[in-house]
């Protein structure tokens, strides 16, 4: 109870800070210097119709590199942690395995669900690809597209929990995309204005699919990478779950 009291007391302090921020907030009526620059120069310099994408992939590309690294890290750590517990679970499971054998597939999915998902998955993948390839033109991009890709894997996982995914493949896709991202960034230093400069390729005409230099390329790889990372996180979590059930 004292804990709640203290927390409320401290949150009151935080409320004071927040209230201060809130009441001192005044909505801008003009774009500030940074935004003005983006509004003026994105079309000509970058050639991307979606300014948010231009910022994410080019102007603040280093942030984005960090961002995909966050996912990479998380996926790696989850793999690391769960690999350890998987080993342990397997070791624990050894003696009792025989008695549990009949439980290996507790919930066989229905035929309809399996067929339906088999049909849906390619469509979802296509949608994902569309989202990240058009990231420089319309809302959406690598992250959203990647998440959509991962949802395809999720669907497969839900319909058939014991499906085996190739960790090897996922990890290769993830790492290759990451490496290409970096290499493209470094090429920017030599062949364009700097790290992650998108003008490695011509900026093209605003609004067409082949525009904005290498933004679509990078964003596609980001999409692949993000998709692979989310997939790997989910698979790792799901697989441990299976092991655990087997264990019970």
């Amino acid at each position, binding site marked *: 109870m004292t804990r709640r009291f203290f927390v409320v007391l401290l949150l009151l302090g935080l409320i004071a*800070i927040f209230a*201060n921020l809130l009441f001192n907030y005044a909505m801008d009526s003009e774009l500030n210097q940074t935004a003005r620059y983006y509004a003026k120069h994105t079309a000509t310099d970058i050639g991307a119709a979606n300014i948010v994408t231009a910022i994410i992939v080019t102007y603040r590309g280093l942030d984005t590199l960090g*961002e995909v690294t966050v996912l990479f*890290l998380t996926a790696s750590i989850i793999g*690391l942690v769960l690999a350890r517990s998987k080993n342990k679970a397997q070791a624990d499971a050894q003696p009792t395995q025989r008695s549990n054998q009949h439980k290996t597939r507790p919930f066989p999915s229905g035929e309809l669900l399996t067929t339906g998902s088999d049909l849906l998955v390619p469509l979802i993948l296509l949608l994902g690809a569309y989202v990240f390839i058009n990231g420089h033109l319309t809302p959406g991009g690598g992250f959203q597209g990647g998440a959509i890709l991962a949802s395809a894997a999720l669907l497969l996982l839900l319909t058939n929990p014991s499906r085996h995914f190739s960790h090897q493949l996922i990890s290769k896709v993830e790492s290759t995309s990451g490496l290409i991202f970096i290499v493209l960034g470094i090429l920017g*230093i030599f062949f364009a204005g*700097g790290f992650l400069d998108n003008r490695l390729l011509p900026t093209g005409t605003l609004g067409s699919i082949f525009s904005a230099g290498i933004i679509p390329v990078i964003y596609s790889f980001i999409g692949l990478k993000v998709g692979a990372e989310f997939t790997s996180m989910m698979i790792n979590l799901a697989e441990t779950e299976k092991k655990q059930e087997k264990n019970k």
Partner: protein
Amino acid sequence: MVNGALYLVAIGLGAAFLLGILPDRRELSYKITLTSLSLMALIAASYVWSFAQNGVLPEQIYTAGSRPPFAINLRVGMAEAVLSLLISLSGLFSALYMRDSLLKQGRRAMAVLLVFVMALCGIVFTRDMFNLFVFSELSVISTGGLVLLSHDSRALGAGFKYLMVSQLLSILLLIGIIFAYHATGTLNIDGMAEARLNTLVGGSLSFFLMFVVIVAELKPFPANGWGLDIYESAHPAFSALFSAASGAAMLFAADKLLLIGGTQWLGIATAIGLFTFIGSNIFALVQENDRRLLGYSSVAQLGLILAVIGQRDLLGDHYHYIAGGILLAHAVSKAGFFWLSGFIEERNLGAWASLRGHSPLIFAFVTFIALLTGLPPFPGFYAKWDLLMMLASEGRFWVLGLILLGALIEAAYLFRWFGYIIKRDIEDEVKPSLLSHPFKVDVVFSAVIAAWSLAYIWGAISQHGNLLHSIPLLFALGFVLIDTLPVKIKNSIAIAGMILWFIYQYPSYDALQVIFSSIILLGGALILLAGYHEKGSRPGFYPAAMLMFAGLIMLIVAQGSFDFFAAWETLTVGSYFLILRGKKSEPHALSYIVFSLGGAFLILAGFAIAAQGTVNFQLKALADVASPYAAWVFLLLAIGFMTKTAAVGVHIWLPGAHAEAETDVSPMVSGILLKAGLFGLFVLLMNMGKQQLYGVELSHVLLWIGAISALLGNLMAIFQEDAKRLLAYSSIGQMGYAVFGMAMMNQLGWLMALMFVINHFIYKSLLFLSIGGVAKRTGTREMYRMGGLITLMPLSFIAVLIGIIAVSGVPPLSGFGGRWIFYNAIMTTEYRLPMVLIFLSGPIAFLYLFRLIHTIFLGQLKDEFRQIREAPFWILLPQMVFVAALLIFAVVPGLVLRRVDAYLAPFFASQSGGLNWEGLTISSDFGYWSPVSIMIIIAAIFASLFAWLVFVNRKAQKVKQFNIAFSAERPYRPETTHFAWNFFAPYRKALGFLTQPFVTRFWESLTNFLHGGAEFSRRFYTGNGQTYAIHLLGFVVAIYLLWVGMTGGRL
């Protein structure tokens, strides 16, 4: 290197990604990891090199072909280069250290490590606020992953606590960033600074949020339980990285942020930093877990550096030198400590005793302690010196005092820890199996090498000259390298070195220096002769002893306050190691080092206040210190020096330290080391003379302290049963005389003090050696357990006899000369009351001195000692030389004193009252003294008395030993049957109240208070992650209230 920072980031990341593509072969992955970490370090090193060579301007790196603030930019200057080198090197070495764990966990773990190092470098390089956030999140997440490398299952809980707190922090940080962006229209840190974020509406509050989060990442006390848990439970190599690299990166982030914040935030940063520094150090005092202690110490150091960052407004050009020095010292030493902790099986400080027997590792430990506590010649020493000088010149005494207080507490627990290593029992005989991890030892030694290189570099770029260019110091350090040689060889080298140095330097010494340097170098060499008695290699003795002598000899030639202080610290540390060698000296050595460092810090503060910003403040300039400060300077310096002379009040370290020391160490620390304090007082009084504070004449106060020390020292000596302890207390009294003499501030007083310097050196060395020899043979120092040794140890007897005649100041030996000058001196001053005390303490000295002869050499011989032999030759030899010296000095004191008298005369030109030196006779206003005739007269009296005794004793009857009778009393303890036990019981009844250990009790209750307080309040760290998050929120709110209170929330 153009765009190097980007390549560094790209290599780290690229290698992490590459590991995923390559076939999963762990050895290969490990090699790639090491290679890329080395490449990163190489890039950073090339930056450092080019900045050091060409001093080029910081490199601005733009990304995306656009200028900031529209795109992210990085900056690499000298500071960034050094920090990224530190980060990548500690990453590399930790990766080497964690080899087994990494190979076991596979490439994912390596990738996480690479990203961690890359992210920390990113934090250092970036100039964009949001980018800073991204990199710090990366470091947080990879920390969350790397914590799991630990073998300790509790690490899991620690990692979760850390993540919880980080979530809280990132929420606040994001809010801060977005409102700061809204206020300034830029995310660029320099842009925000330019826009003066603090002055904008809502801006100051958004700055507050960003600032408080970055500071919270530094684990400010007390909202830091989460950080401590990581230190305690993570893999030691990761803790090393976490302490050295993460801390450095976040400090640099705080530094960048303060660019935006402006001066009002500097004060808050200082306050948080100092609070953390002191609080964490106090908590560390009661820590028994080694890694948690290191955690507290890390946090404390980060706090100290934050405080330094908070003082940047006055540090100017020296800011990077100072903050960098402390930071690098902290990082290298902490990494080294954590790496070392990997060799220790159990997690308590006592278990570190298993390092004993691995002298290289002990040397590493010593290096790290010295580096961390900022002892010379390490960077922290230069940095703290400059820092405190500047603080004092701006009148920021509070900051100065608190820094010194925290540093003292820190030194206390670190040296206590070292004492455990040297002295604690090894519980089971299992020593760390070092050979099974040779590469780990290499990693530890890379830190040692880094430490000494930093010491050299900081010396080279300091404005005070490089301490590592000092020949005595190098000579002493050289003994570390040859520590495995047999003792005979090392002893010869040491003696030869000291004598040669004396001959080489002799022409440049003035009279005062000649006296002190002969005592130090020649006297030291003489005492060293006793070392030939030792067998084997006597590991650790020579580096320590030579360090002390180096410090002493550097002290007496120092012209500038910096050199003086560096020498002072050197001799303090050397003597500490020397004292620690005694069998039971662990607690005494600790109290010695704490008092000495406390005294040293007072001296430092005194110099800092006196210098008022003058670089290379000369000791002579003490004379010119102006009025408001002069008295305080005098006070600080005097107290500081008197901790070394063990004046009453700060004397409690001495008896134990001197009594427990080894046979030949006691004369060194008593006969020679104590003179350092006297030398300091000489320098002080010579330059500052009389000072008044609130109308009190300070030299008068000294006079009283001297008199009381003389009285109480002697009084306490008479109640001792332990012969060496008796001599030690007697030293307190003797030093009291010397202080008294100096404080009289006249020529005779000073002459007498110098006479005491010489006399005390000779007879105290003599007595300690001979009593030490006796103790060595009998195996005890308790006098009542000896007796009747005169026939078995005649030479020792003669030595003690001559020694006590000299001490007691009866004719014909030199002690009398001392007294004679002394009484002459007192007659010239008007301080009657302290004079009475001094007179009183004279006879008291007889009471204890005669016991040395009476109890040890006369009386009945004990059964168990019937077979013992005379003391070893090498211990006797110096004694005989001392006896000869005493006789010579008794006959022709003018040999030395005449020159000194002449040297002193100019200081007292206005006063009359020097001595006249005519032939062999010396005369003053009150009488004359002719040593030669006195000697002849005394010899004649002695001869006739002796002849008479022989004549009378012709018919004396010999009595059997057991021809004694008890009056039917049964003694309750065996020693009470000895006639000499509790010999002065009647006096104890009369005067015992004076020897009550009031002072000891005072210091004890002070330490108990600190310990008890820390023990009680550390329950604040409940271990619950949620509670830690609440602490952190509390911290944020508290700082908010502090800030609102200070500024009204707005500028």
